[in-house]
């Protein structure tokens, strides 16, 4: 009797936690597909808002919170001045970083030790660093590296780790340790993983495919 009860209890719990309604999957699928095509701050904001609505309505799914955080980081990155100057732009970067961090913390509360979440955490720290590179290089820069290392220990087969690493190498001037060659190797590594891996389901993180293609084409 006890066993039956326990079985019933665990299965209900499991279905409550893991079941994804058809409505949820249908709402998510087209939006997840848009992650590789959005390329303006407004588009990222719009997409982020959509994920946030789904997240807040569902309440128990980590993925929409994670995607909402990702979109906010991207919106923040796109909002930064593009002239490449080292200034104090923290007034632009920080609100997006704060927003993304809040959403990501909610995702993490539902999915601990998730390599994907650490990737976005890395991006949040990088965004903060860009807000005032000279002053934050040592603090936020170090935290970004740390988050990426953690992502790697959790799942070394996550291609997004190598995209992020490669982007750092790609955009950093050579004097500061940037290297187009190393970037290329990392993008190729990511691409290799994309070639052989298939997402477990249609709404699992799979962004980066398009980006890698673009970046590799830049390096030819």
């Amino acid at each position, binding site marked *: 009797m006890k066993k039956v009860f326990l079985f019933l209890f665990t299965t209900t719990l499991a279905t409550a936690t893991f079941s994804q309604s058809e409505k949820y999957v249908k709402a998510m699928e087209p939006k997840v597909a848009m992650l590789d095509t959005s390329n303006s701050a*407004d588009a990222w904001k719009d997409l982020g808002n959509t994920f946030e*609505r789904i997240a807040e309505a569902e309440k128990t799914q980590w993925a929409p919170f994670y995607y909402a955080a990702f979109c906010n980081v991207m919106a923040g990155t796109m909002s930064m001045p593009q002239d490449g100057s*080292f200034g*104090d732009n923290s007034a632009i970067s920080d*609100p997006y970083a704060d927003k993304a961090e809040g959403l990501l913390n909610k995702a993490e509360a539902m999915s601990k030790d998730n390599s994907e979440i650490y990737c976005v955490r890395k991006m949040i720290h990088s965004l903060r660093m860009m807000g005032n590179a000279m002053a934050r290089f040592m603090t936020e820069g*170090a935290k970004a590296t740390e988050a990426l290392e953690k992502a790697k220990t959790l799942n070394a087969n996550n291609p997004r780790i190598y995209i992020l690493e490669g982007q750092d190498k790609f955009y950093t001037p050579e004097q500061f340790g940037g290297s187009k060659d190393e970037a290329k190797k990392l993008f190729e590594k990511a691409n290799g993983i994309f070639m052989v891996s298939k997402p477990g389901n249609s709404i699992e993180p799979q962004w980066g495919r398009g980006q890698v293609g673009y970046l590799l084409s830049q390096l030819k």
Partner: protein
Amino acid sequence: MNFAMRHLKFALMILLVTGLLQTLSAQVTIKGVIKDNKAKPVSGVSISIKDSYDGGTSDSTGKYSFKTTEKGEQLLVISSIGYKTIEQKVNLATGVVTIDVTIKEEISELTAVILSAGTFEASDRKKAAAVLDPIDIVTTASANGDITGALKTLPGAQQIGESEGLFVRGGTAAETKTFIDGTLVNNFFFSSVPNIAQFGRFSPFLFKGTVFSTGGYSALYGQALSSALILESIDLPEQSSANLGITVLSGSAGYQNLAKDKKSSWGFSYSYTDLSLAFAIIKQRQDFSKVPTTHNLDANFRIKTSKTGIIKYYGYFSSNKLAFTTNSIDSLGYLDKFAIGNKNSYHNLSWKENLGKGWKINTGISYSNNKDDVNSNMQNQSKQDVVLGNLEFKKFGVDTKGGYFNAKAVLEKRLKGLSAIRFGTEYNYGNDKSVYEAYNGQRFLDTIKGHINAVFGEADVYATNALAVKGGFRIEYSSLLNKTNIAPRFSVAYKLGKGSQASVAYGIFYQDPERRYLPSSVALNFMKATHYIVQYQKVANGQSFRTEIFYKKYDNLVKTGIVNFRNGAINNNGFGDAKGIEFFWRDKKTIKDLDYWISYSYLDTKRDFLNFPFAIAPNFAAKHTSSLVVKKFVQKIKTNVNFAYNYASGRPYYNIGFDGSNNKFTDQGTIPDFHNVSFALNYLPAIGKKNAKSFPVYVFQVSNVFNIKQTYGYNYSYNGYRKEAITPTSRVFVFIGAFISFGVDRSDEVINSAL
């Protein structure tokens, strides 16, 4: 025809029915425009129906539109970064619902106006108007790695080279007080040496935030007529690390350990400074019989008590000695000898914590102990001590011992938005003992013990993002004066546009007379200053401009005269004023990777205090002061190139003599204008190197590059017949050093750290 008609009818009916069905089951369109309270459209705003997937985002014209299948009474949530979230009830039935919404900016540190009149802040906090970063302090070429050296390139501070300290807006160095983690620091500088400005004791790398207030500061701080230098120490280090330094002047080593759980850390460092080598190469004006040597040892621990709370301890021990002779101005062919030995220790323990429900506590205690052993003598050419007739007074010894205890507690309650109230108490205790030994062995003992108690309170009120008001008061009781004062403080800031704001500040500031005039034979009162400040500031991406106009009125300054054959305070009737205008411009944008700032101060001040015969422009106040600081990182050679130029117009000088009944000028004039050009190179070979284990930084620095003659003032012989220019100990000074840190890249930090 008929057939056609029937078909049409049928089609119409179908349309009608499906239309009806659609309206019954189907969607409602919600649309509208989102504007801010200035009626400007806001883009990127999220509009959603609570707990549903349905919603939209406003476009660049503020318009939004979306369809929903939700019915009945629903909650519409309108939210956007930087704005207050609004929830609005809607009743959804059919068709199109138009909902226009006005959203209000959220009051946040990032966008709100800043109560900035009178202050320069260097911090990494999220504030729109912090004009300097902590790193700026240490990469200023003329600063020589000294905090106050960098602050002297900001408007308001004088270029004084003959003595240490910050002389702000016509005030003396004693009118500036320094606070570390809230508590007062006694002996912030190394002990005074005649005509040689001393450095601050503390490395700029101990601090993550520096607030330099040149007037109108908060009621949390007192006992400073002119200026408050508020330093906030760093929290936990990012990583464990060790460092080594070797320079032409010193050697140093240190270690910082961060616990595995990153909740606590400890560390220590030791440095030994010996100027023998430098003085052997660069000729000094003085003849050093004991070349300056200093041992410094410091230790710290920091413990995180919760997510927001931290306990920090910093302890410092230092021992230094020096002795030199100069040709005596009083008697040709003889030498004046000065020797000093100093031992100093300083301990600071602080605790801050968020107590919940918007309450925050900031508390700290500090204890310091200072011992000076000064000897003055005359010597003949073969460096033997001699006592000459009528100049016996030039042989003396002074031993001073000071013990100081300071404590402070501040409670803060955060109200709506950024508004807050703060109140607390401060206690300062000092015990100074001195023994003066005259040439004939006669000893004079002096002991002064006293304390100051203060209570204070202030309120910050942010009416909107654009208007903030701060009002406060401070009540102090001084046991040495046996008097109490009450000082009001007030400031307002108003945002004029994006990045630009105007602010005003008013305040009354009290300070005990300097302890050397206490206890006095006459009852003394607090010295008093009243500040009025108007400021305009504009901070845009990479550029900042600010200008301030100020008026400062002094009352109850100490007048001195001869009391019982000794120089002492005779009354509190001194007075004065200072007025001026200051400009600051910083630009990191116009030229790529080049960062520079320019400051200019105009100061018009007169005062009657100490032995001044009447109100005069004091000898520590130049009318025009200006600085240009340039920094450039040259990526190709991984080198930081820093340059600084400091200028001050000639200050007045006086020799004041007492003719038996009155103080009179026996000589006066104006010293030449002051110019100083400094240049520094920091070479960072490991920057960006992957997996580097050590991070060396090589420093090369030259002060007064062009060998310009600098005069700080004049010394007079006892009889007043001869005078001699006070100049720096050497004209040009060159510094070369190597600093290596292991484990963590502290390149920026290491630059200048042991200068």
